[in-house]
């Protein structure tokens, strides 16, 4: 009983942190701020999926942890390259 309460409190804390990240996404002065905050949203989403699968006693959602990790990494790299050079995939000359 105490264990489930602790898990629900952790989910609430993670939800608050995702909302605060969205504040930084809206307000951030440069676009690197927004990319960093969206990457942090992905990280917090991985953590909350882990807590949720412990809460539901199931291991059906572990694929999603790997999937969101890989997608968040690739998205951050693509946006960083776009900010830095203007293109994502360069053309060979």
């Amino acid at each position, binding site marked *: 009983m105490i264990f489930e309460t602790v898990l629900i409190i952790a989910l609430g804390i993670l939800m608050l942190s995702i909302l*605060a990240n969205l504040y930084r996404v809206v307000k951030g002065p440069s676009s690197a701020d927004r990319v960093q905050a969206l990457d942090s949203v992905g990280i917090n989403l*991985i953590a909350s999926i882990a807590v949720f699968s412990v809460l539901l006693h199931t*291991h059906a959602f572990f694929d999603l942890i790997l999937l969101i990790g890989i997608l968040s990494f690739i998205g951050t790299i693509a946006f960083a390259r776009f900010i830095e050079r203007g293109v994502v995939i360069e053309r060979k000359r």
Partner: protein
Amino acid sequence: MIGEWLIGILILLGAIVCVISVFGLIRLPDVYLRSHAATKSATMGVLLILFGGFLYFWAFENHISIKLLLGIVFVFITSPVAGHLNGRAAYRSGVSLWKGSVQDDLKTERKRMEQKDSGKSG
């Protein structure tokens, strides 16, 4: 149930470290300081939470999850790399540092290289 206490403490500690990183992401004044806060402590928090979940499924469901271990390794490798690329993109696209920062080695190095290039061509 000592295992339940340990897992609950790990998961709660991870959530608290995540929310501390978000406080840093809101309150710090600069892109680079914010990236410093967000990358390190969010990675630490998610590693604590995933390790707590791994211990839970090992102890109570008799299921050693390779996917969670792989997720731990993957997040631990890729999150600092993403922070590094993002900070480098911010610097090269001309985002200025906080005005209280005292040292910018990359700027002096770039100026020195440009002077050397102009001296060679001129």
